[in-house]
Structure formats: C-alpha cells, structure tokens
C-alpha cells in the first residue's frame, strides 16, 4: 500500500509536465531568448498568472480541502508583495541617490545618504524619516524572511483567535473579510509607513541590474513563478494525499466527528491556514515585481472574493482545478479589460466589454455554481469517465463547507 506520491496521483505528473512544457514554450517564443513572438509584457502577464495560480492553490487547500471559506488570503498575498517591494524600492532608490551624490564636491556621509533615500521614498506622503517597519529594508535576505514571516504570523494570530472560538462557516468568512479590509484601510493611511495609497512602485527594476533588459528580467520572474507553482503543487499534493489530507477532508465534511476521533480540529485548521498564508505571501512576492507596483487597493476585500471565484470556476477540491480556474479567469479577464475585445453595437446601446466583463464574470460564477459545481476541472471527469456518486442530492457531510454530491467522485 506504500505507493509513491506519483503512482497515487498521476495527475501530479501530468500537471508538472504541462507546466514544464508551457515554461519551455514561452521561453522559446520570448523576446529575450527566442523568436520574440511573445512580447515582454505578455511574458509578465503569464508570469503573474502563474503567481495567481499559486495563491489559488493555497485557496484550494484551505477552502476546497478543509472547507474554510477564507475571504482574506489576498491580504497575505499583498503583504508578501509589500515585503519584497520594500527591499526593491529601498535598494533601487539608494542606487540612484548614491549615483547622483557621487558627483558632489564633498562625499556624502551615510546619514546624508539615508536622509536622501528617505526623502525620495517618503516625499510623496510628506515625510522623510524611515518608519520602524523599514528597519530591514536594506537587506534582501531579511526581507525575504519577512515575505514568509509576516503573512505567516498574521495568519497564526488571526487563526488562533478565530478557530479557538470555534468561529466557522459564514461568520469566519466575514471575519476574514474584516481582516483584509482593516489591513487595506490601515495601509491607505499615509502614516502607515508604506506610502499610503501611492503604494510601492518601480518594483520591476532590479537594483544593481540596470543593464539587464526587462525582456530578460521578465523571463527570470516567469521561471521563478513557474518553479514556485511546480513546487507548491508538489507540496500541496503531498499534503492532501496522505493521512493529513484525510483529516482535512474529514474536517471539511464533518468537523465534530473528527474531534471525537481525537484530532484537535483547531490545530489542523490553524496549521493549514498558516501554511497557505505563507504560500500566498510567496506568490505575492513573485507577482508584484512583475506588476511593477503595489498599493493598498490590491488588498481590498474584492480581491479575495475573486480568488474564491477562480477556485469555484476551476473546480474546488482538486488542485489542478484551482490552477486552471485562476489561469483561465485571470487571462480572460486581462483580455476583456485590456480593451482588445471588439465592442458589440446593438444600435441603441454598445456593449463595451471593459465595463461588461464584470457582469459576465459574475454571471458565469452563478451559472457554474448552479449547474456545473465541478467547474472547468469537471471536464476532465467527463473525458476520463469519472462519475459523481448518486446520493439523491445529499451533500457528503453536515459541515457548511462539505462537498456537494456533484463535486465528489463515486
């Protein structure tokens, strides 16, 4: 019975192979190393899509497998982005400041350099002093640690408080929304120390690598995102395939029963909540250097709701479903909102997709939930002959997040 992870989950190998081929294909068509058919900005879009797929994977772990409908995971994503953004912005500004001061008659003192950097970064919010939270921003290593530590700690504290009080279902979702809203509102303030609604910008420029063109940098990040997604997928598959995954699905379908088996449900929820927050932070740290800018609007509650929509459309409770959902919806969304889709003139009214895309997305979410709960991932069941159990409309457990009849496998 001790078969390897791949033997038990052939889909993991298929997924990794597809991801590898995709990465090679994009590289071969890129401007930097290939034919140039794919523009640098589209490589960035694809890289961002891979990062979004990674956070969707985290969402699937926490919602699809454990039944916790968290509507706050984009807060962790954003925090990861802010943490890497601080270093990028600090180092880049320092480079500029040092270069411009090098021509001065008197060499600048370290204090003068620091003040000049502070002025550059915080001038927009009317300050020049470095807030305490920027204490580590000079060190890439420390900021990288913060990428996982800050979202992880926030999730740990928040989760401990929420799960310990046995907050579940809709109430937990509302609580997570409140958390992300509170964080966004805090970051919007100019004195939060992270430049208020200006956010951090210029993140696409890597400090000290000015002579490397963006076409190459974009590929680096694309590769990094692909690698992170591949490793994240392996990790997630490993977590859900063993006994731990058994406990998680048990919690999703019937939490009280798991408790009476002697498992500390709160401990498991806290574990998966924190781990997925860390994954989200990493995904964010890969996303925002490709986006170039991060501001508090990214953390707005709606972002986390989108995340749930992606996972639902892709098919929750299966890892590839989450990835496909995130990739598909975010790419289609880019297409629609990019103004490339021709408007439809109706004579009396013109359907402009930039405005109407939201409606299409909302509608498709409703339709998928009602008529195809398996989402896009369900198409694979159609081709492989996997059937849902016939339970006469009964869910698989009493839990609020438990799988529906159509979502399960017979």
């Amino acid at each position, binding site marked *: *019975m*001790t078969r390897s992870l791949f033997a038990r989950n052939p889909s993991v190998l298929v997924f990794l192979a597809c991801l590898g081929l995709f990465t090679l294909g994009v590289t071969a068509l890129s401007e930097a190393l290939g034919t140039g058919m794919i523009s640098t900005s589209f490589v960035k879009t694809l890289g961002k899509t891979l990062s979004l797929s990674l956070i969707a994977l985290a969402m699937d772990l926490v919602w699809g497998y454990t039944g916790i409908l968290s509507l706050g995971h984009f807060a962790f994503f954003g925090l990861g982005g802010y943490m890497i953004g601080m270093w990028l912005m600090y180092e880049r500004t320092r480079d500029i400041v040092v270069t411009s001061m090098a021509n001065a008659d008197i060499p600048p003192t370290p204090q003068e350099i620091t003040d000049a950097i502070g002025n550059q970064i915080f001038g927009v919010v009317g300050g020049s002093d470095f807030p305490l939270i920027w204490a580590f921003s000079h060190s890439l290593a420390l900021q990288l640690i913060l990428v996982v530590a800050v979202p992880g700690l926030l999730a740990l504290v928040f989760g401990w408080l929420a799960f310990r009080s046995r907050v579940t279902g809709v109430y937990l979702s509302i609580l997570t929304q409140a958390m992300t809203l509170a964080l966004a509102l805090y970051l919007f303030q100019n004195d939060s120390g992270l430049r208020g609604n200006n956010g951090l910008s210029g993140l696409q420029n890597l400090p000290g690598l000015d002579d490397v063109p963006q076409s190459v940098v974009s590929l680096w990040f694309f590769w990094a995102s692909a690698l992170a997604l591949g490793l994240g997928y392996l990790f997630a598959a490993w*977590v859900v395939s*063993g*006994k*731990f995954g*058994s*406990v998680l*699905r*048990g919690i999703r*379908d*019937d939490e*009280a*029963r798991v*408790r*009476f*088996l*002697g*498992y*500390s*449900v709160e*401990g*498991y929820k806290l*574990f998966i909540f924190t781990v997925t927050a860390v994954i989200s932070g990493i995904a964010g740290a890969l996303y925002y250097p490709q986006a170039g800018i991060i501001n508090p609007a990214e953390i707005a509650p709606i972002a986390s709701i989108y995340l749930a929509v992606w996972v639902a459309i892709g098919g929750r409770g299966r890892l590839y479903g989450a990835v496909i959902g995130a990739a598909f919806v975010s790419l289609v969304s880019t297409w629609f909102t990019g103004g490339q889709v021709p408007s439809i003139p109706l004579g009396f009214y013109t359907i402009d997709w930039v405005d109407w895309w939201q409606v299409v997305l909302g509608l498709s979410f409703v339709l998928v939930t009602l008529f195809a709960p398996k989402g896009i991932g369900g198409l694979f069941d159609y081709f492989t002959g996997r059937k849902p*159990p016939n*339970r006469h409309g009964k869910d*698989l*457990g009493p839990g609020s997040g438990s*799988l529906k009849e159509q979502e*399960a*496998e*017979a």
Partner: protein
Amino acid sequence: MSTLLEVSGVSVSFDGFKAINNLSFQIGSAEMRAIIGPNGAGKTTFMDIITGKTKPDEGRVIWGEKSVSLLKMSEARIARAGVGRKFQRPTVFEDQSVFDNLLLALRKDRNPFAVLLYKRNAPDTEKVHDLAAQIGLSDQLERKSGELSHGQKQWLEIGMLLAQEPRLLLVDEPAAGMTPEEREHTTAILVEAARTRAVVVVEHDMEFVRRLNCRVTVLHEGAVLAEGSLDHVTSNKHVIDVYLGR
C-alpha cells in the same frame, strides 16, 4: 473491579429546562452497561457531557486510575484519553474509502506534524485489515464509505470506534436500522469488546438489551430511576409507570 468513569451529582439545564438533574453513574474498566429511558430522559445529553460536547452546570466527571476530571478537557483530548463515541446516525467520512476511514481512526499520534509525516506501514495496514474482517467489510476496503448500506456504515463506525482502542465505548442505538442477522453480529462485537473495556449502550430496543445480558440503568427526566439486571429494573414499579407502562 476498578472504576473507570465516575459521574457524580451532574446537572445541566438548557434555557431553564433541566436536561440532567443530579445524575450519578459509574462504570468499571471492563463492564457492559445498557442505558434505557423514554425520549427526553437525557441519554444523549449524558453522552454529550462525558465526551465534552456539553459542559454541565455542576457536578464532577472523574476518569481513570489517576482520577482526572474530564470537565476541563476538550472533546479531542477526551477522545485521546480513551473515550470513543458512536452516534445514533452513522457518521463516517463519506467521501473517503473504508480503508481511509479506519486508518484515520487507528490509535496513533494525533499531532498535526506527526500526521503530516505519517507513512503508511505494514503493521497499520494489517490492523486495518483485521478490523475490516471483524466488521465484515474486508471486500469493501477500497470503496467510498458513502456508497455503503446503512448497516454497513453502522459497522464501519463501530470498526472506527474499535480502531481508536478506547477504554470506554459510548454507543448510541447501534442496532437501529439493522436486520436481525446484523443485530446479532453487532451484539457479538459489543460483548467481545466489553471483555477488555467499558461499553455503554444506549438503546430503545428491549430485545437487543436483553441479548446484551448486562446491568441496565434506567434514566428518567435526567436522573437515574433504577439500576440492576434487566429483570430487576423491568419489575420496578417506577420504571413500569414511566416507561414500560405507556
């Protein structure tokens, strides 16, 4: 025989209604006990208190040789201490195979990190197969438990209970919805289990209780009305009045 569980002077009320009223109960470490009583007598609440789901307003629940109180422990810790519970309706993890259900219940380290690093090994697999044989589900191991018949689910749950290796089994109407042959099998499993551990069976069916051949506790309005052999309690005037007479 040493006492495994001692419940003394326990009361609990919900919105003014006294579900359990100064109830006292004890059971030895290898004993079978049947609890009978009309609807609303407090049987389920009694189990809820022992398993930690409901906290009583007053009274003590003392467990084991070290006489620890169960009242301050969480459900999961009480379960780990050795209290296993079977619910009235079969509750198994329907989306998971019979094998996974049993493996999940197997007495092992419940710590998240230990579970994450757990690797299935031969002794555990063998244990699961033994249990499956005991509950007659050997050929169903790979099936999803949601597909099992009602009776099979009841057994799977009994199997999960045995897999936990509890020192006290609380079983709520184990024979509900079973055919006569299935009942007989269930009786055999419970009687066998009671050789080495304490078993408390809540049951409506007098015929089933008679077959268990054990001491009987009659609950009424949240308190013990009578206790003794089945013949003893069924000849008790109070019992006849409140329960059998109707």
